[in-house]
C-alpha cells in the first residue's frame, strides 16, 4: 500500500509538471512575440539563467521530500495551470488573467516557481502563440522570477510582523501578481521609451495596473482558501517546508 501510494504521488507530481506544459497565458501580461528588440531579449534571457539553475536544484530537492510534499508540489503546479487559463473581466472593461505563482512561491520558495513558470511560458509560446520565444526571457523574469520573489518576501515579512497567515497569504499573492505586471510595464518602457523611460512606464502601467488590481485580489482570496485547507491538513509538511512555525 505504501509503495503504491508513493508511486501515485510521484506520478502525480510528474504529471502535473507535464500538465503545465500546454498552459495558455491568454491575453495580458506576456510580451508578444517579436515585440522586444533583440538585445533586450538576450539580456533578459541571461538574467534568468542563474535563477533557473538554482530553481532546478531546489526542485530536485523537493521531489525527494517526505510525506505529502510531492502532492503539494503537484497542487502548486495545477494551481498555476488553472489560474492562467482564466481570463477574468475587470472594472476597466477589459480582461486579464492571474498568474497563480504566489501560492507555490509561499510553499516552495521563489526559485522552484521559476522552473514551473518557464515550462508554462515555453509551451504557451510554442502552441498557443501567447507570449513568444524571443520574449521568453523577459516574460520568465516578470512572471516566474520577479512575481514569486515578491510574494515570497512579503509572506516572510508578514510572518515576521506576526500577521495572521490568511492576511500574509492574501497580500503575498495579490502583490506578487501586481508586481509581475509592473515588471512587464518596465520592460516595455525600457524597450519603447516615449518621452523618456518614466513617461512610457506610466503609460504601460496605466494599461495594466487598473485592470489587474481586482484580478490580483481575486487570486489572493483563492490562494487563502487553498492555504487554509493546507494549514489544517498538512501541518507537518508546512512546518518542514518552513512555511509555518511549530506549534508551541
Amino acid at each position, binding site marked *: 500500500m505504501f509503495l503504491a501510494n508513493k508511486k501515485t504521488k510521484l506520478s502525480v507530481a510528474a504529471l502535473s509538471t507535464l500538465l503545465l506544459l500546454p498552459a495558455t497565458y*491568454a491575453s495580458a501580461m506576456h510580451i508578444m512575440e517579436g515585440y522586444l528588440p533583440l538585445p533586450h531579449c538576450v539580456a533578459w534571457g541571461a538574467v534568468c539563467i542563474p535563477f533557473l539553475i538554482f530553481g532546478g536544484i531546489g526542485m530536485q530537492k523537493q521531489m525527494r521530500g517526505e510525506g505529502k510534499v510531492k502532492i503539494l508540489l503537484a497542487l502548486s503546479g495545477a494551481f498555476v495551470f488553472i489560474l492562467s487559463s482564466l481570463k477574468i473581466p475587470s472594472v476597466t472593461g477589459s480582461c486579464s488573467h492571474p498568474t497563480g505563482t504566489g501560492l507555490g512561491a509561499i510553499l516552495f520558495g521563489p526559485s522552484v516557481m521559476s522552473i514551473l513558470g518557464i515550462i508554462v511560458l515555453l509551451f504557451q509560446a510554442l*502552441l498557443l502563440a501567447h507570449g513568444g520565444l524571443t520574449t521568453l526571457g523577459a516574460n520568465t523574469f516578470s512572471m516566474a522570477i520577479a512575481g514569486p520573489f515578491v510574494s515570497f518576501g512579503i509572506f516572510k515579512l508578514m510572518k515576521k510582523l506576526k500577521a495572521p497567515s490568511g492576511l500574509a497569504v492574501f497580500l503575498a499573492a495579490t502583490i506578487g501578481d501586481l508586481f509581475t505586471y509592473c515588471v512587464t510595464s518596465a520592460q*516595455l518602457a525600457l524597450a519603447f521609451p516615449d518621452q523618456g523611460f518614466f513617461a512610457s512606464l506610466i503609460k504601460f502601467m496605466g494599461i495594466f495596473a487598473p485592470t489587474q488590481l481586482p484580478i490580483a485580489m*481575486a487570486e489572493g482570496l483563492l490562494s487563502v482558501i487553498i492555504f487554509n485547507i493546507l494549514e489544517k491538513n498538512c501541518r507537518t509538511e508546512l512546518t518542514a517546508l518552513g512555511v509555518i512555525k511549530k506549534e508551541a
Partner: protein
Amino acid sequence: MKLWIKNTILAVLLVLIIAVPLLFKGGSEFGGSDGEAEEAISEIDENYEPWFESFYEPPSSEIESLFFCIQSAIGAGIVGFALGRITSKKNKEEKA
C-alpha cells in the same frame, strides 16, 4: 470560526469581485489588456514591426478556447485529486 465557513465567505467575496465588473460594465468589450499594450507601442513608435512570428497559432477562437478549457479541466482535476488526498481520513489514520 469553522474552516468551511471561513472559506465560504472568502469564496463569495471572490465571486463578487469577478461578477461586479460584468454587472456594472455591461457595455464594455472585455478585450485583453495586451492588445491595448500593442496599441500603445504603435503610438510610441509607428514604424515598429514585430520582427519574429509565432510558429503555430490556433486556427480559430473556438480552437483557442478548446485549449483553454482543456487546460482548466486538467488543472482542476489535479487540484481536486491533491486536495482529496491531503484531506482524506485514511491518510490521517495511516500516519497515526
